[in-house]
């Protein structure tokens, strides 16, 4: 027997959900959703759970991750209850539930705290630069080291435990019996979804958006690989230099389109932007752009006189790596693909 908890709805509103209470359960949203199936039907069920505050049911559900926010449900909702944005907010809420540090929740719910975090990161970079006497060589060297350490630390201490928590909430706690072999046979699903977001092609007329998203993932991973493992800023190989340029260009060009969508607010999915959405896309854009310009300055010999440029890039990088990646919207990259993986494991 489940008790109703109206407080949950109020909590959810802090994550961007609104008006979902207006739902009168007609089910049009589920009917128009091209990803909803008979076995996994949404979003009405999630709206209902949210209205009633059935936290446990939501926590153990993968459905929020099965939605790729085409926005058809919100367009067709006769009550204007915005099921699409509710699903988005549930993903934010789930992200915080998975996060053992609970910092995600703080940052999602409070813009001032997020800004403070960003300021601290900036100050950190400045202090570090002062300590290094603004020596470009050593700053760039340590900057590169930082990238490697940050990736390892964030993944090891935050993301990996969080994914284990997600697994616990979805499979272990609800006592779903899964044969061990499934974890291996379904592994391909994880890789496919992580790198292709194949499922989002199931949304109507989504080819362009899927393509943009696909190449930005490739661009991002490519740039990550180029800067971290190939040490782009210190590498003289022409191939590596060009590769870095291409990857960074991809990032800032595509993110310009994403940002303009959020400004124009014509598509349902980009009508409502939370600070976390803006930060994710803007920082991605800045990362691509600053990396591109830094390398350009290196190649034209201007970087020595413009050390501020690298410091700016480094600040963006630190904020990205320490705030947005572990506690921000970046995590959807992992949770979505793991959700598909867990779904497959459960289904097999």
């Amino acid at each position, binding site marked *: 027997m489940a008790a*109703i908890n109206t407080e949950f709805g109020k909590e959810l509103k802090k994550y961007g959900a609104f008006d979902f*209470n207006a739902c*009168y359960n007609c089910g049009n949203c589920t009917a128009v959703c091209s990803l909803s199936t008979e076995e996994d039907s949404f979003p009405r069920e999630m709206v209902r759970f949210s209205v009633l505050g059935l936290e446990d049911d939501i926590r153990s559900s993968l459905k929020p991750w099965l939605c790729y926010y085409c926005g058809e449900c919100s367009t067709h909702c006769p009550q204007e209850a915005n099921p699409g944005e509710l699903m988005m907010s549930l993903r934010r809420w789930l992200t915080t539930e998975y996060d053992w540090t609970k910092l995600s929740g703080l940052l999602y719910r409070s813009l001032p705290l997020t800004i403070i975090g960003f300021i601290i990161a900036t100050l950190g970079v400045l202090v570090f630069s002062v300590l290094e006497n603004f020596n470009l060589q050593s700053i760039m060297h340590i900057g590169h080291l930082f990238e490697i350490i940050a990736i390892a630390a964030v993944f090891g201490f935050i993301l990996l435990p969080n994914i284990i928590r997600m697994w616990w909430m979805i499979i272990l706690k609800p006592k779903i019996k899964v044969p061990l072999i499934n974890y291996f046979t379904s592994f391909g699903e994880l890789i496919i979804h992580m790198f292709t977001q194949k499922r989002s092609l199931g949304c109507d007329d989504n080819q362009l958006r899927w393509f943009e998203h696909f190449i930005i993932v490739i661009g991002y991973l490519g740039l990550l690989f180029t800067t971290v493992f190939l040490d782009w800023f210190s590498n003289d190989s022409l191939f590596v230099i060009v590769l870095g340029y291409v990857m960074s260009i991809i990032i800032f060009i595509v993110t310009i389109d994403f940002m303009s969508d959020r400004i124009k607010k014509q598509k349902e999915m980009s009508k409502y932007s939370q600070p976390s959405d803006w930060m994710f896309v803007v920082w991605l854009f800045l990362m691509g752009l600053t990396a591109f310009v830094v390398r350009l300055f290196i190649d034209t010999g201007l970087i020595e006189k413009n050390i501020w440029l690298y410091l700016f890039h480094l600040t963006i990088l630190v904020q990205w790596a320490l705030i947005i990646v572990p506690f921000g919207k970046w995590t959807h990259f992992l949770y979505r693909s793991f959700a598909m993986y867990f779904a497959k494991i459960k289904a097999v």
Partner: protein
Amino acid sequence: MNKKIGVYICHCGGNISDYVDVEKVKKSIEAEDGVFLAKTTLFACGDANQKEMVDDIKENELDGVVVASCSPKLHLLTFRAVTERAGLNKYNYVHANIREQASWAHSDDKPGATETAIRLVKAAVAKVRLAEPLYPFIINSKKAVAVIGGGIAGLRAAIELADMGCPVTLIEREHFIGGRVAQWDVLFTTNETGKEVVTKLYNEVIRHDNIRLLTGAEVISNTGSIGDFKMKIKVTPRYIKAKCNEGHLLKAIEVCPVDVPDEFNFNITNRKAIYHNFPSEYPQTPVIDIKNCTRCGECEKICPSVDFSQEEETIEINVGSVLMATGFDSYTPADGEFGYKQIENVVTLPQFKRIIDLNDKKLIYKGKEIKNIAYIYCVGSRQIDGDNKYCSRYCCTSVIYAAMQARHKFSDINNYHFNRGIRTYGKQEVLYAESLKGGDIYLQSYEDAPPVVEQNNDKITIRINDILTAKKEMSVEADLVVLVTGMVPRADNSVASLFKLPKGRDKFFNEIHMKLRPVETVIDGITICGACQGPKNIMESVNSALSAAIKSFSYVSKGELELEPIIAKIDKDLCTWCGACAEACPFDAIKMVKDEKKDIAAINNSVCKGCGMCLPVCPSNAINLIAYSDKEIESMIDALAG
């Protein structure tokens, strides 16, 4: 006397002629005795044919007309009007139904259909041969209307009648007018209070010279019928003189030792024997409830306006029409129905509305502050096994509005609606949307699995298998359970039996035709409106009140009434009064009268409907139905048997 009869046989497009050989019908009856002309026509009801009929009748001086076409329900009146336009008495027209009774019924047997049609037309011709001109009865109709019930419908109807220049006696059983509406606080959609609405109407009622308002008044007898109802009304006094000092009065109320449940607050509070429902209620003079008064005399000592010498009186009135607006009772749940009377803090919707009205700032009931409220819908309505199959219409809107009011008036209220599907029809739908957006929770079940109310120690828990959440079992802890009770007919509807007013299966008063004659009853001269007819909200009650007012006025406006002449007729010589006819009459139209030497039956022309129920029971065959005499019917049978 040999009549000149015209017969018209209709093709009805092909509805008749596709199966019935209309030309053959025409040929077979042309030779019938008295038939002067016989024609077939594509559409008898068409303008061209109607005009041709008028010309035929005038030119040939026809004195009997038959049209063989569709059902008389469709076009009897059409062709009666045609004969009237041609200057012929309309009762010289006889209708033969060869569509429903021949072509449609026997579409598989064309020769048979034709044969049936021929016999039907011959029978009609036989009847028209014997038809005589008839003229409506004219009776006097007293230009006055009695409105029974001083609630929203009765008040509005009385004002409307009075505005049209009709004297009205407005009879209210309680000592205060306004009925149920006076008990409600703020109303959807206008956001006025019930008191404000009633005040508006009361002010119009008292300024009207045409309205005589009787409170504490009850109809105790009625004789007479349409145009001439003679009613006796018992009026209970207030035992307080009209002009009284308010200070004295308040003290008098204070000293009164009697303590009885206050029906105005649906028994959630008590009142004294000397009382008014609320300070400005109308009429503003308070009342002594003489049934509960102990005559201790304490009030008399304080307030000089108290006057126990006032006496009950009986007033006789004479009106042409009666308008019934006696309203409804709220359904009283059975003991234990959703915990009613067994679990504390289970109340009905009307009680809840009074609780909201009576509380300020904090919502307190029985000393406990209320935060979580569960509403259980359709209590006493839409019963699968019970008597009340109907939906009470008003409750969904009413309870959602009350819940919102509670949320706005008091802080931290959580509303949980256990419903069976929300019916905030029409413009009221916006309220439902607003309630949802405001955070009210709606849980739904089917009628076969209603929510369960349980009490464990101090807590009331409501459980439901919510069909909106895949029948998941959900539970709510509530401080107050509101049973959303519907409308039922008045427990004491004895006034209806004085007028022999028929009731429907739902026990509300019945109209003649729900859609086409919604405020008339089979008792001529009596109209019904408001919730005595069935569940209605205020708007619907007032709508029906206005239409009943107009209908009642139409009975009395001219001072006389034309009544249908087709009624029963007693042969005084044959009648020996056995009473069988009076017993058979469903309209109470037959009474015994003394003739010169013996007792005989007499028909009340204004009440008889010509139904013919009295004819077969008469052992001496002393009753005939005008226009359906034995002679006429026998001649028709002969023609049909051919």
